[in-house]
């Protein structure tokens, strides 16, 4: 059924919108990055269960992150961000130590410059290796006066396909390979995909990608096979700190708002939810996050919008332009005699 919000805006039941009549509740992930310890068990469990191929053994210089990005061959990606700032009331243990300025910003600049010169500018990470020169990173000089710096925090966050309410990848797929499951998730049918690559450019999060040698698009399935067997996804099962929580989306949203209130009460005002709002540009994510900094610091778009929002405008402009071309062609011939005219 086509709803007023079938393409954009809040949509309470995407599975029903896709034609599933009797279906289980919509499920998803709530990834609470405030308790992520960066163990990467989610990355490993996902690769093992889903038989996801290797994406290159990189040494990226992105703190402890050598995966770099989600991609065709990385369906979970743990980001690591080093910052000279306190986490809540935590004592970073720097008091009395000789500390100079942090080097993390210079480190990031070195990595950024190296990435810029790779084939896809770093966008290949998670899919294929990035051939970076061995990073030569500046090291903070520890010769500053004691007490010159007291902040230090290490953010870790496990990223995953957002399973959007309005999924750009699904909307543009010309073969029907991408489909909405009865759980409200978005999955690629590998036996249908012909590798046209449209979904890659339609994803506002840069998640889905094409496997270079296989030729087909691939991304997180939210462990569709496990869901059908009544199991939780491999990453959530493997997470030792419950940073990755799986469940019905309504329940996860409640849990997340409780957790956010707790963190704010505990003196972590920078905690925020990302992707939980059904009024956002993608109608809310099936996989949403609690972040401790702005989304872009984690490599996430701050205000993603599904391209399908502009569908009508795009077609209307194309229609007018097509009519203009037809009119131009007719007028080029109109009112002039044919043969023999100079």
């Amino acid at each position, binding site marked *: 059924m086509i709803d007023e919000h079938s393409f954009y805006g809040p949509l309470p039941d995407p599975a029903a919108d896709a034609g599933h009549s009797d279906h289980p509740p919509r499920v998803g992930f709530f990834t609470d990055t405030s308790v992520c310890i960066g163990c990467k068990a989610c990355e490993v469990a996902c690769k093992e269960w889903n038989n996801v191929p290797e994406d290159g053994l990189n040494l*990226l*210089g992105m703190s402890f992150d050598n995966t770099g*990005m989600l*991609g065709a061959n990385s369906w979970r990606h743990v980001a690591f961000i080093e910052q000279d700032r306190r986490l809540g009331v935590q004592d970073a243990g720097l008091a009395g130590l000789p500390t100079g*300025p942090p080097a993390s*910003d210079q480190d990031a*600049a070195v*990595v*950024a410059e190296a990435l810029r010169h790779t084939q896809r*500018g*770093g*966008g290949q990470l998670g899919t294929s290796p990035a051939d970076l020169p061995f990073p030569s990173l500046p090291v903070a000089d520890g010769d500053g006066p004691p007490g010159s710096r007291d902040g230090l925090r290490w953010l870790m966050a496990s990223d995953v396909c957002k399973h959007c309410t309005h999924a750009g990848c699904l*909307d*543009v797929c*010309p*073969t029907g*390979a991408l489909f909405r499951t009865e759980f409200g998730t978005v999955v690629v049918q590998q036996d*249908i*995909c*012909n590798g*046209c*690559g*449209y979904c*890659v*450019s*339609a994803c506002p*999060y*840069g998640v*889905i990608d094409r496997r270079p040698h296989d*030729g087909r*698009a691939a991304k997180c399935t939210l462990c569709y096979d496990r869901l059908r067997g009544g199991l939780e996804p491999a990453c959530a099962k493997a997470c030792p700190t419950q940073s990755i929580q799986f469940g019905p989306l309504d329940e996860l949203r409640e849990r997340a708002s409780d957790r956010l209130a707790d963190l*704010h009460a505990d003196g972590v*005002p920078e905690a*925020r*939810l990302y992707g939980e*709002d059904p009024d956002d540009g993608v109608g809310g994510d099936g996989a949403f996050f609690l972040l401790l900094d*702005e989304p*872009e*610091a984690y490599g*996430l*778009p*701050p*205000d993603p919008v599904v391209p399908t929002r*502009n569908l009508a*405008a*795009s077609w209307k*402009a*194309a229609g*007018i332009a*097509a009519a203009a*071309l*037809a009119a*131009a*062609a007719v*007028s*080029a*011939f109109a009112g*002039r005699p*044919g043969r023999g005219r*100079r």
Partner: protein
Amino acid sequence: MKTREELAVPRAEFRSYYGRPVLKPPVWEWKIPAYLFTGGLAAGSALLAAGADLTGRPALRRAGRLGSLGGLAVSMVLLVADLGRPERFHHMLRVAKPTSPMSIGTWILVAFSPGSALAAAGELLPGRWFPRTRWTGRLLTLAARPAGLSAAAVAPGVAAYTAALLSQTAVPAWNEARYELPFVFTGSAAASGAGLGLLAAPVAEAGPARRLAAVGAAGELAASALIDRKPALPARAYTTGRAHRMRRWSEGLTAGGAILAVTAARRSRPAAAVAGLALLGGSALQRFGVFEAGVASTRDPKYVVVPQRERLAARPLAGGTNGTGHPDPESPGLASPA
């Protein structure tokens, strides 16, 4: 404590994850912009051929029909070859999805192809194998006109849908130009089709090609200039780097070709040929330039982060906050310049 500004690298007017792109750059290679050109050429040629057929211009008709089928054939090869699994090209025919311009485009091409092919066959085949005195030859010649007209009816769709295909993505430069790109592409298609007509038809028959060249080039250049003048950041991808260089060359060739088409090409066949080549080159470079701008806008995270940050800042109780209306005191985001 040193402030962030003192430590900041030059590219730090926005924040990112180690400068890494937010989006995946398109997996499409040169074959897609090449198709944008050949598809446009097929469309423009089909229109010219139909007009020439109806107004009795056999040489222009022949050039248009053959150009249309040639452009279409090359397009098909390019499109199938660009697939990750070329042997599955027919999976495009499983569904018809209005939300997917590629799906709609597939069906537009399905509607365009038989007419274009039959019209060209009517041009090529009668003669040696299908003599006009036999019924096969007569049937082909008879069918060529309705076939060519059916291709011409679909041709504007062939020329325009590719703009919707590009703008219906998260690629900032393409998405930003969703109102202008269709006019750039249809203008470019008209200019290239007319260019082929100028190149292949005698001066006496090429009058409509000269007029279509002028109108198409004017439309393309005007729409292209509108993109360049857009204040939004993603439009900068069109006015910098390789995309900029290609599009400047394109503009020069297109403008020069069009001016030549309505002046010297009215009398001189060599001038008409030069004008035709310039128009074809300008059209091709325009497609490659637009494609390159899109790729560049995905490789640099600023094209994603800065406009979205500005959008959030313009919204009450959003940008630079933690989602609850409380500003994050240490946030160095654009909403709260430190």
